[in-house]
């Protein structure tokens, strides 16, 4: 797999773990970029590591500790020193963990995406910000792409994202999966965001059609992640099924010249049923 694909497929999961380790959205994003920069330099000559995700997390983690060490040398506040000590401890454990695991099959870090989903789709953030932050962090879309997909100027979208991240930090929106008794209610908010992303792509009446098609794909991908992470939630499966069903009609809905074809005139033979049948995100 090339680095670009790895970025699209893995950056959400890597970012989720980095936020857990570092306790900061901004720092995690910065270090994610740095780790990929190192990968771009090293992988072409040294080859792609056995477990690229673990390698990237570990690289970003090391860089994070270096960065905090440098920062605390100048500005040694008590909380920062404490944070650094915690990080160093975790880093030592993570390194040991990495050595113990067979990196071709095991995953030393676990999956933190579920907490990231719940933080990004927290009801204390306005809906537009929830959608934007989810696409930015979990899907790895950049600010320009999200702005284009939602037909707003880039600075507006950038502001929306900064505002959301500031609120997460300042109001201390927790980074955790909600307790069982709140899960159903909170999951509803998450599914709304996923469905909004899908709809934005499905109802593409204007704008860059390629990007909007991608939104459908991203929503389905997130739907799969939800099913994978919460296998007992029927509603998550229903949402995925609904999206796959709609998406299977994608190519039948629009003529070659780009006009909408009404349902009774659609060529049902061209429905992409294979898409719905080939992927089973849940295992029985």
């Amino acid at each position, binding site marked *: 797999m090339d680095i670009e694909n790895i970025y699209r497929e893995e950056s959400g999961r890597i970012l989720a773990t980095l936020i857990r380790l570092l306790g900061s959205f901004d720092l995690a994003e910065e270090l994610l970029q740095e780790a990929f920069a190192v990968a771009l330099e090293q992988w072409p000559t040294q080859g792609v590591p056995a477990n690229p995700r673990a390698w990237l997390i570990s690289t970003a983690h090391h860089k994070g500790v270096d960065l905090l060490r440098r920062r605390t040398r100048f500005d040694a506040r008590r909380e920062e020193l404490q944070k650094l000590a915690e990080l160093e401890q975790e880093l030592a454990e993570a390194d040991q963990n990495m050595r113990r695991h067979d990196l071709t099959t095991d995953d030393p870090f676990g999956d933190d995406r579920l907490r990231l989903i719940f933080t990004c789709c927290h009801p204390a953030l306005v809906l537009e910000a929830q959608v934007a932050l989810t696409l930015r962090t979990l899907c790895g879309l950049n600010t320009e792409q999200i702005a284009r997909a939602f037909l707003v100027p880039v600075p507006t979208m950038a502001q929306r994202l900064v505002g959301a991240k500031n609120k997460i930090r300042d*109001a201390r929106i927790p980074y955790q999966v909600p307790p069982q008794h709140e899960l159903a209610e909170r999951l509803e908010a998450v599914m709304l965001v996923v469905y909004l992303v899908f709809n934005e792509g499905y109802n593409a009446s204007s704008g860059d059609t390629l990007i909007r098609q991608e939104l459908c794909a991203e929503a389905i991908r997130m739907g799969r992640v939800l099913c994978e992470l919460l296998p007992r939630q029927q509603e998550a499966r229903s949402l995925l099924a609904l999206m796959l069903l709609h998406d299977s009609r994608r190519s039948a809905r629009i003529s070659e010249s780009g006009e909408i074809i009404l349902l009774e005139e659609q060529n049902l033979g061209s429905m992409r049923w294979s898409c719905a049948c080939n992927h089973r995100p849940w295992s029985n």
Partner: protein
Amino acid sequence: MQYLLLIYGNEPQWDKFSETERQAISNEYTEFTKSIAQSGHLRGGNELKAISTATTVRMRDKKRLVTDGPFAETKEQLGGYYLVEAKDLDEAIALAARIPSARWGSIEVRPINPHDMP
């Protein structure tokens, strides 16, 4: 981290409650306050007197302007507050949801930006 829970309600609606209903709500408030004191969340709080007792002060061009109000034109008025200690926003929201007035009014949850007091 500390949060201020601002309790907004509708005063005319409050006036419509019967004496027994008001007593029941007042008991509920006492119970709630006791329980968050016992759980270690409570840092302070009070009920405010009616908005008709409020006074607004402004300094403009070094002149002091004192007026009645703010007038109760808006649907909901600030009627009281709690200052609580909570580990994160979700814990503060859970406390806010238990305030009796949340059932008919609304609670604004505001994180405190701490400053050193002299």
